[in-house]
């Protein structure tokens, strides 16, 4: 791809916006259309585009497979951990209402942090987003990195 300067320049221009849009879809998901799954896929699409234009090795340096594998696990843990946190705050598993004003009481941050159902869905969707993005990137790596006929 070294000789395709147009592709390289356009890709360089586009990738930051793709990643930014992914974050918008992620964190705006509780007000408008979107959410963790869509955001994760868009984020992964940015990395995939980078891999297609600048080569697989470059993409692997940006998103090392070993880190991606751990992010998959981390996302699931964030999701389940939110549920367990709700249990410790006195509700049922994943009962976000139990998270209402349970954290950082009296601190300055309290007024700026989301609460209850809002906080719960935000954390859960964050977990979903991380896992989906990491899974999509790893799937791309394992298909693109397959050697022909061993």
């Amino acid at each position, binding site marked *: 791809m070294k000789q395709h300067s147009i592709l390289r320049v356009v890709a360089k221009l586009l990738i930051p916006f793709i990643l930014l849009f992914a974050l918008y879809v992620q964190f705006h998901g509780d007000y408008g259309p979107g959410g963790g799954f869509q955001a994760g896929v868009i984020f992964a699409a940015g990395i995939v585009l980078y891999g297609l234009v600048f080569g697989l090795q470059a993409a692997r340096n940006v998103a090392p497979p070993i880190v991606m*594998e*751990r992010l*998959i*696990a*981390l996302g*699931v*843990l964030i999701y*389940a*951990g939110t*549920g*367990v946190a*709700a*249990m410790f705050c006195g*509700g*049922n*598993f*994943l*009962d*976000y*209402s*139990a998270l209402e004003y349970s954290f950082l009481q009296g601190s300055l941050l309290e007024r700026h942090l989301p609460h209850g159902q809002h906080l719960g869905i935000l954390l859960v969707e964050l977990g979903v987003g991380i896992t989906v993005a990491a899974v999509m990137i790893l799937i791309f790596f394992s298909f693109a990195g397959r050697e022909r006929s061993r």
Partner: protein
Amino acid sequence: MEHHLPVLLIITPLVAAPLCVLVRQRLAVFGLSLTVCWATFAMAIMLLVRVLDSGEITYQLGGWSAPWGIEYRIDTLSAFVMLFVSGIGAIVLTFAPHSIAREIREDQHYLFFAEYLLCLTGLLGIAITGDLFNLFVFLEISSLSAYALISLGAREGVQQTRRALIAAFHYLVMGTIGATFILIGIGLLYMMTGTLNMADMAERLRAEVQINRKLMDVNETRTVLVAFAFLSVGISLKMALFPLHMWLPNAYTYAPSVVTAFLAATATKVSVYVLLRLIFTIVGASFAFEKLPLDTELMVLSLIGIVVASTTAIFQTNIKRMLAYSSVAQIGYIALGISFASLDGLTGAIVHLFNHALIKGGLFLAMGCLVLRLGSAELDDLRGIGRRMPWTMFAWVVGGLGLIGVPVTAGFISKWYLISAALERGWWPVALLVLLSSLLALVYVWRVVEAAYFQDSPEQHAEVTEAPAAMLIPTYVLIGATVFFGLWTSLSAGVAQQAAQLLLEVTP
């Protein structure tokens, strides 16, 4: 925390699985998984005790109440299924370290534990949930991790590498077709009832609806018929009911021994549980058995399956494959019990879920010991092994007797119920066929006994020694349990009978 018990049972293995991937270090991962599995087993016991004590338990996830939110609903049947699934899960994992050290690549060990825990989560989740779509999600969790677990058998030196991958892929294709059918069925039912909660759905299916200016019950509509057809075919595929069993023999043969033992003992059994739920809880026995001929269909297919699969098992040269075909036959017994739609028949089916899980689990663990020492499961390699590995082979023989259904083993109890259910209906040809198939089982078990005890061992096995105690003890726990539950039946048959009474809605 008592109140949270149902959800803790599910999320403990669910949280432990990603932790395994994060930790990666072999010993730590094994310790974590082992603790989690035994803790899950303990929780399943506590749940069963509470259900037997005080009846149904429900748990609302996220605090959303029943027909809207997802609900966990535990009755005798689901607690019983969870008891043996988690029990087998714990015992098989205790057995695992030596076996996987030989059969699975070292850099994949942490993945094995993570997938194993996920599979356990899925299987337990299917049994615990009261929400039909949630059931589908858990079914997918267990199936996807099962495909991955089977593909771990691809290690050079122990078996031909590619075969495990092909078997896993074949299972993936068949399993996905089954899962799609189930999803279509659920979608159609949701379309007609507007609910996914099983208890709520059962109620709404019996309500009246106006179609083309005609009043009719919802379950008389064609959509519900189609939904039921999709669901029953999809579930039959998952439980490997003859003739939809084609994925099973290869999957069981080429998977690592530990995986085979776990899946053979639990996965198909949980699918049978789903079928029971569909027939008796959701659409109702009168819909499935009187309006539609599901009982005749199940009976014909299971009888053909029992005879054909047992006969095929006789001609196998690989013992794991032989046991796999025997599993297809045993699923036939369970389906036969359901098709009687009587208390005895259903009790026989449910108790055979339990008994066969113990017997097959034990047998495949013994196979794991043999594969560890011999590196092969071929009948030819087993010649004279009865003298070199006496403990392992003795366990195998006791398990084999259980398969045949000899008195004093658990297999006898199930067959007793099935035959008495057949005679109660006056279907003596069915009873005769069940007895005949026991003779077929005797033939294939005898082939192994003959090779192991009455033939000389080949030269290359002069060095073979007994399997380590760490593997023999879990094997003997399961094999001992088959004898124990052949003598003391108040847990297995007693609870199974109570579950059957609840399903048939008869009062004791």
